[in-house]
């Protein structure tokens, strides 16, 4: 994975107080840990270790459990990611409709490996299982936006919209 420049020092006190504020909305509701992590992750597109520590303290659950949850679900990442997350489907219905060519072309255009982040930190590409839009396979999502019926030629224009 390509390292994100400056990622190590992102946990300034300003960021951590934002985390604290978000986590506080779930105080006393440890069962909402997953929802809390969704909200915290929205700040920086990943969950730094220090943020997990804050969430653990505020929700009063062991840090090990917070870490366990943060590493279990594929939408969460404890490693720095780019500004936009590209989730590209590699399940069978997309596979038979030519997902492989689209994936190869995407990685090629961005100059990254699967799971990697572009040098300008704009995109992180992740392989995912079915996104539930197989009617327009092959498909990918960029953040919360779905793109379907893809052919390699479509990618350039789609990526441009995020630059």
């Amino acid at each position: 994975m390509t390292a994100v420049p400056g990622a190590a020092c992102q946990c300034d006190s300003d960021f951590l107080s934002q985390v604290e504020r978000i986590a506080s909305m779930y105080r006393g509701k440890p069962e909402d840990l997953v929802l809390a992590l969704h909200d915290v992750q929205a700040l920086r597109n990943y969950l730094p270790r220090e943020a997990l520590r804050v969430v653990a303290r505020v929700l009063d659950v062991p840090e090990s459990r917070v870490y366990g949850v943060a590493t279990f679900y594929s939408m969460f990442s404890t490693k720095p990611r780019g500004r936009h997350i590209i989730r590209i489907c590699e399940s069978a219905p997309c596979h038979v409709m030519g997902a492989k060519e689209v994936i190869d072309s995407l990685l090629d255009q961005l100059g990254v490996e699967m799971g990697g982040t572009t040098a300008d930190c704009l995109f992180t590409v992740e392989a995912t299982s079915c996104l539930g839009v197989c009617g327009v396979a092959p498909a990918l999502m960029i953040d919360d936006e779905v793109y379907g019926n893809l052919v390699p030629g479509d990618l350039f224009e789609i990526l441009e919209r995020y630059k």
Partner: protein
Amino acid sequence: MEFYRSHVLVCGGSPCVAAGCRAVRVEIERLVREQGLDREVRVVETGCLGPCDQGPIVVVYPEGTVYHRVNMGAAREIVAEHLVKGRPVTRLQYAGELPSVSTADDKRTDYFQIQKRIVLENVGLIDPESIEEYIARDGYLALGTALTNLRPADVIETVKRSGLRGRGGAAFPSGAKLEFTARTESDQKYIICNADEGEPGTFKDRLILEGDPHKVIEGMIIMGYAVGATHGYIYIRGEYYISIERIERAIRQARWLGLLGANLFGSGFNFDIEVKKGAGAYVCGEETALIESIEGKRGIPRRKPPYPGTSGLWGKPTVVNNVETIANIPPIILNGADWYRGFGTSTSPGTKVFTLTGNVNNRGLIEVPMGITLREVIYGIGGGIPDGRSFKMAQTGGTAGGCLAEAHLDMPMDYESMQSAGSALGSGALLIIDDSHCIVDVACSLLHFFAHESCGQCTPCREGTTRLVQIFDKLRQFRATQADLDLAMELATVMLRSSLCALGQSVVVPLGTIMQHFEGEIQAHLHGKCSVGLCHGACDCAEGRPAENV
């Protein structure tokens, strides 16, 4: 209520959103205003109309004209010609017919005859963001009837007699499930709607929630009444942004009208619903893993028994049902068990929603009576195989379902027949694959999915899925032997017996049917031959990455 001369329905299902329907709707609205027609023409964003690969779909009523692949230029033409001058734009019209669309001069073809909409009766027809439109189509009438005229035991009896079985994969009789929990004594019980929908090739639950969210809410309340639960959860995959938005809005509307909350219909019965978001894990669709996830933990399956029916969420009796199962409840209560049994076969009553994907002309969402044949679906509704290719295989029920060959095309699609062919109806996914694909490549893709999604808790599944990926990669590279294939089947059989949940247990279903129905092609790979010409001796590294992905 205002009266409009025309209604323009723009499909707002996720596949159409992916195709750009939002911009098209905004453009149509703008042009309608510009033409000063906004008091005569109403533009509505609806749920899925079915032919997802044809999107964005726009329907103009009262004529029932269906336009497909509508881009901005087409939108302008439709407004200028159809809405202003009253001349439908034939060139942009969709040739197929949609079961949800009734045309002014109704002359229905086979396509419509085959489909029968119960679960999807409102999807694509109403504005899913309007509770009034749902109510206008008898929405919440079943709930009112149940709460004021029926005892909980009557509700359960009706569901039992209807023969409804779970649509989430396991096909468990739904009435029996309700009865089980109703009989368990407890101070608190829960209803959970399973909307985690991760089975590849399945997107029906998403489109039901997006197109008719109130039906799911109504179904859950009725189930709560039947078993004595006052709280429900809808667990939705985190990636289903539109479903989450629509269902949350629908819950707020229902609360506002007193259809959720305290003392519903003056009956003294209370019920409320909360939405919980997943965060990307296929295994969370398994009911006990889902419960763990709602409790805020890693979504790993629990050992069963105890089953959720007696000890589920926070140790309390819990009914977990699939979205489609729940959406069947209001129509069954409203029309009765005998009515429901009038559809489908005697042993598999009712309809089934399928999602048709892969190499077929019409990909998308369909609802058909149980017992229809695969051939009718593929060559009738699906419009056949594109590009002059021919049918090779169909995988029914998602990745955990069986792979069927040409010989099975005329078999009825119901629970019993599917089982006899070693497959299942499962989640309703129907993946059609043509003869340009190699069976070993397909198997690699399926096995890769299992390895990727195994939660890692139990050894047979974690290690077994990894080893199977390795064996099939070897087969793809022409390096495997008969002993490897025997080992693969042995592994899958051990996984069936010893895995903790159905994820590991079901790998044998696709694998076994592939080995059985495509034996010749598999065997050829042992001798360095791939009839399709897709596999080569060398390693296909982009795909063959067994270890790092698990």
